[in-house]
């Protein structure tokens, strides 16, 4: 009887898994098929701009959010203030469920308005960093809990001040978790659109170097939306394929360590 149930379950799982895989392959095939060839030479600088914007904004967002998330995770691990800890965890859980468009509005008001950064890659990066915080905090806190605190206590037992123990002992130990969290966060930011439309804007960036961060610039996902709205489906699918390749690269890198 049990064997029959197990066989039935397997029998059901195979077509479901095959359907999901088939859909994904079909979508990818369709995207590649529709990606335009006729306008590639004209579109290349445009894609290059968007790709650079995506990479810069992603890196900046991850660099801003990861240290904050790590130290927040350490505080959650080490704190004795149970009430504050519970409050922070509830707040982070709530923030994790907030739609990214709302983050975009908040980022537009705070960074774009109050901080007078306007529409810019920097505004987008700061907003994306806020967006990433709840997820990365939970990821890193969970990883730190699994690591256990024996090494940290051993460092404290050797007379290390807490800060040095955290940075010198806990941080290297959490290296793998931080590495994975960084690439997961990067994938999230690269695919983000709603928050970035409202903060990084949809412009074509022309500045070079760090001044690029102070200019408005569309990322690949924002560019994709823009192209669809303007009726340029070939460009949209091309941007989609580039995003897929970027996501695959980030995923490969996250498993690389």
């Amino acid at each position, binding site marked *: 009887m049990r064997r029959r149930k197990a066989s039935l379950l397997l029998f059901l799982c195979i077509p479901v898994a095959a359907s999901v895989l088939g859909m994904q392959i079909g979508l990818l095939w369709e995207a590649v098929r529709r990606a335009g060839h006729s306008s590639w030479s004209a579109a290349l600088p445009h894609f290059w701009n968007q790709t650079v914007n995506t990479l810069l904004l992603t890196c900046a967002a991850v660099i801003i959010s990861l240290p904050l998330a790590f130290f927040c995770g350490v505080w959650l691990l080490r704190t004795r203030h149970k009430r504050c800890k519970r409050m922070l965890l509830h707040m982070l859980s709530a923030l994790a469920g907030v739609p990214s468009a709302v983050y975009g509005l908040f980022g537009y008001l705070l960074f774009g308005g109050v901080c007078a950064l306007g529409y810019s890659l920097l505004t987008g990066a700061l907003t994306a960093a806020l967006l990433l915080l709840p997820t990365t905090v939970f990821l890193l806190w969970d990883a730190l809990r699994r690591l256990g605190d024996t*090494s940290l*206590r051993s460092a404290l*037992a*050797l007379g*290390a001040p807490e800060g*040095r123990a955290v940075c010198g002992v806990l941080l290297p130990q959490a290296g793998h978790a931080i590495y994975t969290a960084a690439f997961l966060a990067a994938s999230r930011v690269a695919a983000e659109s709603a928050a970035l439309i409202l903060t990084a804007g949809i412009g074509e960036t022309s500045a070079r170097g760090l001044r690029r961060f102070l200019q408005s610039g569309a990322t690949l996902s924002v560019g994709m939306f823009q192209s669809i709205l303007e009726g340029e489906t070939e460009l949209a699918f091309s941007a989609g394929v580039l995003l897929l390749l970027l996501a695959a690269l980030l995923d490969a890198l996250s498993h690389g360590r």
Partner: protein
Amino acid sequence: MRNLAVSYNETPVLQDVSLRIRGGCITALIGRSGCGKSTFLQCLNRLIEENGAAVSGSILFEGREILSPHLDLCALRRQVGMVFQAPSPFEMSIFDNVAYGLRLHERLTRRELRRRVEKELRRVGLLEEIGDRMSANARCLSGGQQQRLCIARALALSPRVLLLDEPTAALDPVSTVQVERLLRGLVPHVTVVIVTHNLAQAKRIAQQIVFFGRGTVLQIGDAGLLDGIGAEAALREYLEYA
């Protein structure tokens, strides 16, 4: 220590503990699980406060009150080293593990640092075993080697007291013998306080026995207590299960 008491969220764990640990010898803390041995041990270097415990009473170390809020904890923990039950090498090389404490507290040249690290590794019998693999990650070592590495790391700071919380619980018999031999070699220069469930081990190495029960010290004596000589009822009952 005098009238030492420890509690977590107002739940008492240790109460009215008063005893004197003999310097220059090995003191074994024995008793049932949950009776407060590890808690007591962690009071001696105030690591218990990291768990959020409230400690009251008095602990004197070389005439100084170590429960004073003005005490330099880093300096105390340099002099009172600790080794935990589970081997906990840091995510760094074997060399850097032993050098960690030295780099924290002393300014040494590279040559002097290497000399000190090699001295401690030789002392715990690791130098011959690892050979020229000092730059290898410490986690590549076996459990017994990792525990001896942790002991070397603690001894590198030349502590006056070494606290060990069931250091051989996770080790094979050969590694256990190696650690016991190492501990015997430390006295009388270092005072050793060891928590152990292994009464045979306590008999082999300890000169002073402290028997814990119900969150307090029930009996203190020499190693003869483990043969039942002068043992009170509670200790005799505990020894029957051994």
